C-alpha cells in the first residue's frame, strides 16, 4: 500500500523526534526535555496514521487506543518508584506482544509475500512472543506474585529443544507459506511457551539484565515488523532501541561480572555452595555513636542498597545528609551499577528523595576516594561491598566489581539482621576491625541518628 506524502512526512518527523528525544535523554540536564520531545514524536506518528486513506475499523482502533492507553497511563501514574522495574518489564512485554500480533495478522491475511518479508515477519514474531511471555514472568517475579525460581530437570536441554522447535516451525512457515493456520498456531504456541520456560528459572537478582535483554528483543521485533509493513519509522525506532538495549544489557552484565549466557543458563549458586568460612565477630554500635562518628568526620561516603529503598529510608537519609553538610562534613553517595533492581534504579530512588545528582557517584568515580573517607555508611547494601569478591576465588561472587568501602577509616553498616545478602554469601566486611553494625530498620535508625545530630548542634 502506498502512503500519501503527508502521512510519510509525519512518520519521518516522528522518527526524527524519537532520535532527538533519545539523544536528549543521554544527559541528566536535558533528559526530561528528551522524553517530552519523543512523546510529541509518538503523537505525530499516531495522528498521521489515522489519515491513511481507506483505513477500516477506525472505531475499533480508537477503542483499543483508549483502553490500552488509558489503563497503562493510570497504572503508570500510580506505580511506586521502588516498583518501577517490573512496570517497565510489563510495558515492554506488551510491545513485544503487539509486534507478534502484527505478524499474526499478516500471516492470517496470507498475502503473497516475498521470502525476505516472510523471514523477517517470522523472526520478529518469534522474538516478540518470547519477549511478551518472558516479560510477564519477569513482572510476576519482581512483583512477588511468583516467589520461587522454577527449574525443570534438564532445563537447558528443554530450552534448546523448544528454541529449535520454534525455529523449525518458523522455517516451515517460510517454505510452505504462512497460510496454514495450524502451523501458525503451533509456531506462536511454542514461541510463547519458550519465553515462559526460559525466564522461569532466572533468579530475582539477575532480572534487571533479563528485562533489559527483552527490551532489546522487543525493539528488534518492532524493527522487523516495520520492514514487513514497509514502514521506515518503525524500523528506525525499533532498531535504535534494539541496539541501545543490547549495549545496555552488556553494560549491566559486565557490572555484575556475569556473562549474559551465564545469567540465562546457569543460576547463581545457593548460599552454602561456595566461599570460605569467615573468622571473627561482628561488632555492634549504637545510633548515638554513629551520629558522633559522622558529625566529627570530614568526609562521609554513603553506600545505599535496595534495603534502604525497601525501608523507604531515602528521605530520612537525605535529611541526615543535609544536617551533616550544614555542619561542614563532606557527604557523597556511592552507587554500585547493580544497586537496586535495575542499573540506575538507586539513582532514581535518591532523586525521588531530593538528592541532587551531582552528589551521586558511580563505582569508577568514587572507588579511589574511600581511602580518604573517615566514615563509609552502608545502608541496606551487602554483596556490593563484600571484599571476598576481590580475594576469595571459591566465592560465588568472586570477580564482581565492588565498592571499596572496606578502605574507609570506619565502616558503619545499618542492617536489619545478621542474614546474608541477595546472593546468600557471607560478607567478610562485617567481620573486619574497622566495621561496626547498627542493627535495625533503616528508616527509624536514620531518624534516631538525625535526633542525635540535632542534639549535637
Amino acid at each position, binding site marked *: 500500500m502506498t502512503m500519501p506524502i503527508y502521512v510519510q512526512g509525519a512518520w519521518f518527523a*516522528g522518527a526524527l523526534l524519537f*532520535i532527538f528525544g533519545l539523544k536528549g*535523554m*543521554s*544527559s*541528566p540536564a536535558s533528559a*526530561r526535555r528528551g*522524553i517530552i520531545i*519523543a512523546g510529541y514524536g509518538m503523537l505525530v*506518528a*499516531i495522528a498521521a496514521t489515522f489519515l*491513511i486513506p*481507506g483505513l477500516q*475499523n*477506525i472505531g*475499533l482502533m480508537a477503542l*483499543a487506543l*483508549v483502553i490500552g*492507553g488509558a489503563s*497503562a*497511563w493510570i497504572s*503508570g501514574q500510580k*506505580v511506586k518508584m521502588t516498583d518501577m522495574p517490573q*512496570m*517497565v518489564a*510489563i*510495558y*515492554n512485554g*506488551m510491545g513485544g506482544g*503487539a*509486534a507478534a*500480533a*502484527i505478524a*499474526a*495478522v499478516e500471516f492470517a*491475511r496470507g498475502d503473497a509475500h516475498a521470502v*525476505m518479508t516472510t523471514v523477517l515477519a517470522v523472526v520478529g514474531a518469534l522474538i516478540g512472543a518470547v519477549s511478551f511471555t518472558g516479560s510477564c514472568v519477569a513482572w510476576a517475579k519482581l512483583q512477588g506474585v511468583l516467589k520461587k525460581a522454577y527449574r525443570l530437570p534438564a532445563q537447558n536441554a528443554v530450552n534448546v529443544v523448544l528454541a529449535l522447535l520454534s525455529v523449525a516451525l518458523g522455517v516451515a512457515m517460510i517454505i510452505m507459506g504462512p497460510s496454514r493456520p495450524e502451523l501458525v498456531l503451533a509456531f506462536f504456541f511454542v514461541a510463547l511457551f519458550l519465553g515462559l520456560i526460559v525466564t522461569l528459572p532466572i533468579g530475582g537478582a539477575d532480572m534487571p539484565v533479563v*528485562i533489559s535483554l527483552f*527490551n532489546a528483543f522487543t525493539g528488534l521485533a518492532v*524493527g522487523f515488523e516495520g520492514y514487513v*509493513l514497509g*514502514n521506515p519509522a*518503525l*524500523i*528506525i*525506532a*525499533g532498531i*535504535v532501541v534494539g*541496539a*541501545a*538495549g543490547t549495549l545496555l544489557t552488556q553494560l*549491566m552484565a559486565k557490572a555484575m561480572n556475569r556473562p549474559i549466557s551465564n545469567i540465562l543458563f546457569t543460576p547463581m549458586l545457593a548460599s552454602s555452595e561456595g566461599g570460605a568460612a569467615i573468622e571473627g565477630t561482628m561488632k555492634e554500635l549504637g545510633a548515638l555513636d554513629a551520629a558522633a562518628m559522622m558529625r566529627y568526620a570530614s568526609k562521609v561516603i554513603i553506600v545505599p542498597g535496595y534495603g534502604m529503598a525497601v525501608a523507604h529510608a531515602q528521605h530520612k537519609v537525605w535529611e541526615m545528609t543535609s544536617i551533616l553538610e550544614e555542619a561542614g562534613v563532606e557527604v557523597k553517595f556511592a552507587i554500585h551499577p547493580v544497586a*537496586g533492581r535495575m542499573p*540506575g534504579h538507586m*539513582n532514581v530512588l535518591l*532523586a525521588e528523595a531530593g538528592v*541532587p*545528582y*551531582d552528589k551521586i557517584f*558511580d563505582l569508577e568515580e568514587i572507588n579511589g576516594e574511600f581511602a580518604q573517607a573517615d566514615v563509609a555508611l552502608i545502608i541496606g547494601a551487602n554483596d556490593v561491598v563484600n571484599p571476598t569478591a576481590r580475594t576469595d576465588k571459591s566465592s560465588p561472587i568472586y570477580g564482581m566489581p565492588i565498592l571499596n568501602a572496606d578502605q574507609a577509616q570506619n565502616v558503619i553498616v545499618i542492617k536489619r539482621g545478621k542474614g546474608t545478602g541477595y546472593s546468600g554469601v557471607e560478607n567478610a566486611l562485617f567481620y573486619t576491625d574497622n566495621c561496626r553494625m547498627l542493627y535495625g530498620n533503616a528508616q527509624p535508625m536514620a531518624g534516631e541518628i538525625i535526633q542525635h545530630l540535632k542534639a549535637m548542634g
Partner: protein
Amino acid sequence: MDGMLALYIFMLAAFTGYEIIAKVPVILHTPLMSGSNFIHGVVVVGAMIVLGQADTPVQQAIGFFAVALGAANAAGGYVVTERMLAMFKKKED
C-alpha cells in the same frame, strides 16, 4: 520495500542507537531503558495499520489486541519515564 535499502536503514539505526547509549552516565540507565521502552511503543502505529486492513473477525480481534498492547506500551512507557526524569535535578544554589 527495497531489501537493500532496508538493510542500510537497519545498519544506520543500529549504529545510532549504539552511539547514543555509549556515552550515557550510569545514573540515567533506568530512565533510559524505560525511555527506549517507550520509543518502541511506536509499534502501535504498525498495529493500527494492520487493524486498518483487517477484514475478517479473527484479523480484527488480533489487530485490536495489537493496538491495545501497543498503546499500553507507548502510554505506560511515557508516563513512567517522565515521572522518573522529572525528579532529576541539580543541587539548588
